[in-house]
């Protein structure tokens, strides 16, 4: 008869229990996301610095952008705007993770925090808060803007509990709780068991700060991280093609465009001639550029705002094809005749344009500047190419001084206010100094000023559409080149719910295959 010793029985029991233990271990899912920079700040006053990607898991905004970048309910269940007054009804059943109830009082207190910040872009009249019920209140915009709710989709407007020091222990209503933070190394959040909304699928999220692009990619290949949040074109070029790294992309959101200096002094005044700008627009072979850069995921652009955004549509701009013959003819019409050395001349002046590729840095658009240089050389334009890998140098040296003809930028309307990008880059009243050189003039100023005070969303969008058309078509202050998706990389088996707005990628809902 087979007999077991006590030790043998214990060993067998342990063996049988192993799958159960393993199951419970597997029950906790964790995800490590590599981000380039540690943007976490402990400064109470720096409201905007505290709410980016990692901390955004802890706190929530009043509304979130839907698929067309229109505000949809989150902490605000509904809202109404009439006669300059916003009437808000709050989401029921929400609590801050410290147990404080989310109601009209705590919501108003959270919104009042913005007045302490130094970048109060909500521009709420702080004296106008009026509680109309336990879960409802009114307020007014201090500038009469109808876009306050749109601005609340920005992650920087998240609601913090005022009961704790949010610098040391940020408390919000979000799906995660702050667990630990090691400067320049990592920030970890864990699932909030009492979250009011749908529970996230990932239990523990760790954001690793890895500055070096190669290191992020190698760490992913080595299985040390699960997802790369900030993907540069160089990483796309060096991404292994053996399936060990998976590319996730959103719809195109970021534009690459040449902003023309419309108001510069000589010698940076050549692009003031519309025919010159139009010639440049027709001389760009966008299809070729799209096939080479960004892993071929970019698309030729007709504008700098994608058609799907804010329901703008695609039909209000025409775009430009590739027609170097037409480009040459336009330059002939403008009086720039081909010289013996292959460079055009007018009144003894060579057609030489300074093109600065710098924002946010030249490495994000390489080798596009060199490709453009060749395309423009083919129609007789000499390009003085300046490549700068530092947006500070770009701003101070070339943009603020107007000392260039063309500025290559790779950016997006990273705000759900439809007027945000156009107002900052193409108005004479821009708060971002140097962009006064790229402002077409009073007609665009007027359109955007009207949009900013328009009282219905339809009216806002109509004005924005008209301003966008003027900027990228009729005035050509911006020569569109490409629209590019937002990218993340992951190891195989991971599905990332992509968003065009990088701050809205919901890492808590990443799914991991067994």
């Amino acid at each position, binding site marked *: 008869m087979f007999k077991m010793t006590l030790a043998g029985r214990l060993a067998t029991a342990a063996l049988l229990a192993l799958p159960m233990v393993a199951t419970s271990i597997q029950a906790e899912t964790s995800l490590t996301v*590599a981000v380039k*920079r*540690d*943007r*976490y*700040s*402990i*400064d*109470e*006053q*720096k409201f*905007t*610095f505290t709410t*980016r990607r990692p901390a955004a898991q802890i706190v929530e905004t009043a509304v979130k952008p839907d698929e067309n970048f229109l505000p949809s309910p989150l902490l605000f269940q509904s809202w109404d705007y009439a006669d300059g007054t916003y009437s808000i009804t709050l989401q029921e059943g929400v609590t801050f993770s410290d147990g404080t109830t989310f109601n009209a009082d705590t919501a108003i207190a959270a919104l009042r925090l913005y007045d302490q910040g*130094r*970048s*109060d*872009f909500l521009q709420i009249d702080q004296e106008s808060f009026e509680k109309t019920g336990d879960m409802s209140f009114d307020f007014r915009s201090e500038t009469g803007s109808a876009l306050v709710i749109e601005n609340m989709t*920005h992650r*920087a407007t998240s609601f913090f509990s005022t009961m704790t020091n949010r*610098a040391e222990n940020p408390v919000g209503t979000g799906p995660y709780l702050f667990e630990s933070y*090691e*400067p*320049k*190394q*990592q920030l970890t959040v864990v699932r909030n068991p009492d979250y009011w909304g749908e529970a996230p699928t990932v239990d523990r999220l760790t954001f*690793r*700060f*890895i*500055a*070096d692009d*190669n*290191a992020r990619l*190698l*760490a992913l*290949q*080595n299985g*040390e*991280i699960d997802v790369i949040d900030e993907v540069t074109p160089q990483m796309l070029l060096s991404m292994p093609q053996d399936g060990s790294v998976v590319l996730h992309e959103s719809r195109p959101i970021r534009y690459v465009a040449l902003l023309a200096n419309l108001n510069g002094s000589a010698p940076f005044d050549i692009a003031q001639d519309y025919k010159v700008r139009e010639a440049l627009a027709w001389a760009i072979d966008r299809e070729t550029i799209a096939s080479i850069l960004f892993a071929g995921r970019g698309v030729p652009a007709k504008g700098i705002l994608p058609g799907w955004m804010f329901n703008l549509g695609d039909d209000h701009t025409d775009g430009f094809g590739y027609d170097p013959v037409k480009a040459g003819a336009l330059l002939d019409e403008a009086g720039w005749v081909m010289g013996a050395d292959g460079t055009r001349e007018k009144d003894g002046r060579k057609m030489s344009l300074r093109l600065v590729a710098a924002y*946010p840095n030249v490495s994000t658009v390489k080798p596009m500047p060199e490709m453009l240089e060749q395309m423009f050389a083919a129609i007789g334009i000499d390009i003085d190419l300046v490549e700068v890998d*530092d*947006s*500070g*140098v770009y*701003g*101070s*040296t070339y943009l603020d001084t107007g000392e260039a003809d063309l500025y290559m930028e790779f950016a997006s309307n*990273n*705000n759900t206010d439809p007027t*945000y990008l156009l*107002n*900052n880059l193409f108005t004479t009243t821009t*708060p*971002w*100094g140097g962009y006064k050189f790229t402002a077409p003039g009073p007609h665009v100023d007027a359109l955007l000023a009207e949009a900013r005070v328009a009282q219905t969303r339809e009216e806002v969008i109509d004005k924005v559409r008209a301003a966008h058309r003027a900027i990228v078509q009729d005035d050509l202050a911006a020569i569109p080149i490409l629209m590019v998706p937002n990218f993340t990389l992951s190891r195989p088996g991971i599905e990332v719910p992509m968003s065009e707005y990088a701050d809205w990628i919901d890492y808590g809902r990443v799914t991991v295959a067994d």
Partner: protein
Amino acid sequence: MLRYILIRLATALPTLLGMSFVAFAIVSLAPGDPVMQELRAMGVVPRPEDIAAIKAEYGLDKPFLPRYFDWLGRALRFEFGESIATGRSVMDEIGIHLPSTLALAVSSFIGAVTISLGLGVAAISAGRWTRAGLRGLTIALVSVPSFWLALLLIYAFVLQLGWMRLVGNGSAADLILPALTLSLGAGASLGRVVYERIRSEMCEDHVRLAIAKGLSPASILVGHIAPRIIGPLATAWANTFGALLGGAVIVESIFGWPGLGQLILQAIAQRDFPVIQAYLVFMGLGFFITSLLADIIVILFDPQLRREVNHE
């Protein structure tokens, strides 16, 4: 000796003052506005009064010289203000990251000294072909950029052999690859110095006499050559240590090592003026202290210099 050290410290004051001015000027006159840069990156529309208030808070609205003297007064008390990016005091920031950089610099330095002694002594005692091989290896290690060497080591030890991880948590095991990366280049460079110094000493009469007396090579090396070359080597070591303290920026970045290199890279990108200025001052102080130590070591090991210093 104490008098010498005091004189040396006194003569260093103008240098340190000049260094502080250069550090302040480089940062202050560099293009780029930290306030606007961050506000644009965050997607914020600032009002002119907001920008003015932020500039006033960091003293960026004052003329250059008053700003410098304000800053110098505080710097003398080791008060460098607050980091624009993080809100922590600059001294806190340095306190967080300095231990990691020191650990990396010290371990790289130990590695470099070990490698250099090994390479130098091996080259002296080796035959013609081995010496040529060592010379080639040394040239290769000195010539290879640290970032490339780092990637090579990552490929071999992390991706192929799987012995190490790339992005650790600052533990001792995570120190091995970055320290190896730094010590290989520095060690090879120092190895040439060791080799040349030993060779030059071997031509001296006292070494020839020791050889003639039939002493073993090891005894000659330890008893006759080492005391004579330690002074010049100390100077080279001091420079190397200073360079390792300040020059590990790229390696720290590649390996995600949470030292001052990571701090300064991000500070430069964000135009975090107070952090950059403090970093430059600390690096200057680091070089000053290590070169002072080297001078003292040189004096201690050179009887002639020791006599001169003591009689002054």
